[in-house]
């Protein structure tokens, strides 16, 4: 698999670091990691930074992850970019909302690096 540019969206900077570390532990070769602390910031970041993968929390201030997923298609750079949700919101209705809005995967916190691998690799393989 080629080098990946990833956008990690979470209002917790600690969690963004953990997600990045988990991606590396999953064997994903990260060329570039862009961070954003909410959905609105992430939309702005995508306009300037084309990426291959987005990992996104749901509960965030300003713009939550579900709204971000709904709006991401408005960013030219981001059309077709796979989004995997990583969130404490583990209910079936949240999963359904996220997937029906366009997310390709869903990881519940707390999560292991193996779970990140299990959910992210198929998404990247499908994209390539």
């Amino acid at each position, binding site marked *: 698999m080629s080098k990946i540019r990833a956008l990690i969206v979470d*209002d*917790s*900077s*600690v*969690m963004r*670091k*953990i997600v990045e*570390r988990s991606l590396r532990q999953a064997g994903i070769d990260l060329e570039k990691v862009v961070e954003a602390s909410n959905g609105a910031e992430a939309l702005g970041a995508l306009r300037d930074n084309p990426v291959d993968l987005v990992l996104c929390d749901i*509960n*965030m*201030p300003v713009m939550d992850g579900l709204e971000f997923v709904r709006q991401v298609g408005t960013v030219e750079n981001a059309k077709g970019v796979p989004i995997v949700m990583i*969130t*404490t*919101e*583990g*209910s*079936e*209705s*949240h999963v359904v909302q996220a997937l029906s809005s366009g997310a390709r995967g869903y990881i*519940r*916190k*707390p*999560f*292991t690096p193996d779970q990140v691998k299990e959910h992210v690799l198929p998404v990247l393989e499908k994209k390539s």
Partner: protein
Amino acid sequence: MNAEPTTAAHPRPESWLPILELSAQEVFEIMLGCQVEPVKEEENPRNTEFTAMVGLAGALCGILTVCCGSEVAGKIATRMLGPEIASSEGQVWDALGEICNMIAGNFKNKLAGMDGRCMLSVPTVVTGGEYSFHSLADGDSMSTVLLFEGQPVTVRLELHS
């Protein structure tokens, strides 16, 4: 961990303490790579130098708090970030807030019938032990003390009736 208690087996809040304990234990085990066990509260008094809070609203309404000493909070941040990253004061608050958030999320996800009907607030962290906590939650409350590297971490849930 194989045990997976839910409200189907424990329909009343007064029997939810094992679910809360399991929720916290799983977060520590998965995110920090360490096992924590409940201990007697009277032998391990609560240290409130750091208090993280997450509100619950909807079908389950109340507040979940995680209290610990500053040394413990620092160790939690170091465990989460890894020893190679020096944790700043802000990252310590952030780490404890995320632990609280994950315990609250894990807890509500284990409660049968709560599907999508309970929302969590973003976490808040208070530092400094000289404060009084007045929750307006008027229902059941439960708390557990877990020993993390020999020091207490108190997880408390207060519910509206």
